[in-house]
């Protein structure tokens, strides 16, 4: 035990809900052999915040979570929880609880024993223990299952036991590593809502790892997107969606993903346009002035499928390759002359073009995102 205790001297299992702790991650790097799993990570999580760490598998998000938990040690940087530097504090003294993807229930213990385990380890007296277990079991609707073993539970029930075990000692910080990914689709949606309610009720700080952007968009107050060990962008879901900081975020957030087309900035008279193949896409004036101020001439033009509409007269030509119908909306996957695929989202009951038909695609001016092709960074606000 190096520096201070993270528990603030608060007795284990004390009555009042702790104010969810804030988390400060500063310059944290973690290497495994030659591979850098997390590179120079700076991240702040506010009190009572629900922060989602989002990224594809292998992006370092789970490692980042384990570093915050204290299950792995960083090679560089510091981590503070609740204002205390815990970089050298053992995981069990950090006052954090974690829910694992596999739930990690103790298979030989009953549900009651599983939930009780953190309390027994901290020598909480029996009467207090019974009360806390009862509360946690009630909160997660487990009261009837306390005598069962994990093997006698369904996936959803196991998941709730894992949650109960995590909340029973009222940790200042809650870490969740893809807790919903082993549930079937319907249960996942339901549990997602329950988790949000639970977090509001307990007012704990949550850091939640997922690769599922729907979970991230619906659950997080803010989303932190990681790729290849590097933090790409942090922001509220709407902002990350509306103003992706770089090409990676643009392509990762949104379903179907944003169309990303290589283009060249061309000055033509009084206006500025991006040439995509043989088509010219005029930039809205605000974006045009910004594009002029940067040196980048080779750019990536990003357009969300909903900002790409069918317009016979539009210069961007494409051939319909696939029509996907999801009921409330349709996706037109079209092939550009160069072989690139672009997707347009169509709502309403308009007649759809047939597969193989050539059409023009118009871009809504406000829907244009521009990125520097060399750096991948966003140009503009």
């Amino acid at each position, binding site marked *: 035990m190096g520096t201070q205790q993270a528990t603030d001297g608060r007795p284990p299992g004390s009555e009042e809900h702790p104010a969810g702790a804030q988390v400060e991650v500063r310059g944290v790097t973690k290497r495994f052999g030659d591979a850098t799993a997390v590179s120079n990570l700076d991240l702040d999580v506010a009190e009572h915040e629900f922060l989602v760490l989002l990224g594809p598998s292998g992006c370092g998000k789970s490692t980042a979570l384990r570093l915050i938990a204290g299950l792995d040690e960083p090679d560089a940087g510091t981590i503070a929880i609740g204002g205390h530097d815990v970089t050298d504090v053992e995981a*069990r003294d950090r006052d*954090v609880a974690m829910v*694992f993807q596999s739930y990690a229930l*103790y298979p030989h213990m009953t549900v009651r024993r599983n939930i009780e385990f*953190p309390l027994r*380890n901290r020598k909480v007296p029996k009467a207090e223990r019974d009360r806390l277990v009862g509360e946690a079991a009630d909160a997660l609707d487990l009261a009837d299952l306390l005598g069962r073993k994990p093997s006698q539970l369904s996936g959803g029930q196991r998941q709730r036991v894992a949650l109960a075990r995590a909340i029973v000692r009222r940790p200042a910080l809650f870490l969740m590593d893809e807790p919903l990914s082993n549930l079937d689709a319907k249960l996942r949606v339901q549990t997602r809502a329950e988790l949000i309610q639970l977090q509001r009720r307990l007012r704990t700080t949550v850091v939640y790892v997922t690769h599922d952007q729907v979970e991230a968009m619906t659950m997080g107050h803010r989303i932190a997107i990681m790729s290849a060990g590097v933090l790409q962008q942090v922001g509220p879901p709407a902002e990350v969606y509306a103003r992706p900081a770089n090409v990676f975020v643009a392509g990762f957030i949104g379903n179907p993903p944003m169309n990303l087309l290589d283009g060249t900035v061309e000055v033509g008279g009084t206006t500025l346009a991006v040439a995509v193949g043989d088509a010219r896409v005029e930039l809205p004036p605000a974006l045009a002035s910004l594009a002029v101020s940067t040196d980048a001439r080779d750019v990536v033009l990003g357009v969300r499928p909903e900002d790409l509409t069918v317009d016979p007269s539009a210069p961007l030509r494409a051939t319909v390759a696939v029509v996907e119908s999801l009921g409330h909306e349709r996706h037109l996957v079209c092939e550009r002359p160069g072989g690139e695929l672009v997707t347009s989202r169509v709502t309403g009951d308009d007649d759809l073009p047939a597969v193989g038909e050539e059409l023009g695609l118009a871009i809504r001016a406000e829907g244009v995102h521009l990125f520097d092709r060399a750096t991948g960074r966003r140009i503009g606000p």
Partner: protein
Amino acid sequence: MRTVLRYLVLTALAAVVLFPIYITVVNSLLTPGQIAGRPPTLFPTHPQWHTYSTAWSQGHLGRYLLNSFLVTIVIVVGQVVTSIAAAYAFAFLEFPFRRTIFVLFLATMMVPFEITFFTNQATVVQLGWYDTYLALTVPFLATGFGAFLIRQSFLAMPGPLRDAAELDGAGHWRFMTKVAVPLARPSIAALAVFSFFGAFNQYLWPLIVTKDERLRTVQIGLRYLRSTQVDQINVTFAGTVLAALPLFVLLLLFQKHLVRGLTAGAVKG
């Protein structure tokens, strides 16, 4: 048809395995003359039950069995405890030369007992343990095999359990006693049964490190019985049955664990 054939083969094999045991029991109930007679008698028509009381009283089997049990229990407890501790270290702790030391542990399994036999005997004598219970037990309180067996079962545990226990506030001791050991119970039971049989059946080692008759174990007692009751071979057979009886009872009780231990990890439990 296949089933019938399979059971025929199994029955034949069982008969081959059980025949020596059967004939031992039968011989213990025959007169020495009947045992020597040809063709052999396969069923005792006038069972000589007194052979058992003779073996028990004149062969001092009670004392020998007690010794055997004492020595065996100390060895079993010792092996289980040291194996769990070593296995835990190899499975869950980080320390320098972990792999190398583990390989050395494994290497001890490849050295036959006979090679270290005389060195160990000399060591025991030098330590002044000759003719004591220490000589009978201490050299067997740890085994590489036990550490290996239980380490495998620790390693088969899902990784997040250790992480979860750590976050739940369990240190190494709590994790070992409350999570790792209960989950490794089948392997630990198998180790206990194996080491029980091994210790109980020892013959050569107790023979060369003890001479006091009061320290002798039952296997040596049997040989002693044989040499004193030369004209009554049936008494020796009765003693053999008595000496084997505890193992037989143990086998019945722990059969499940024994098989489970042998197949542990083969089938997802």
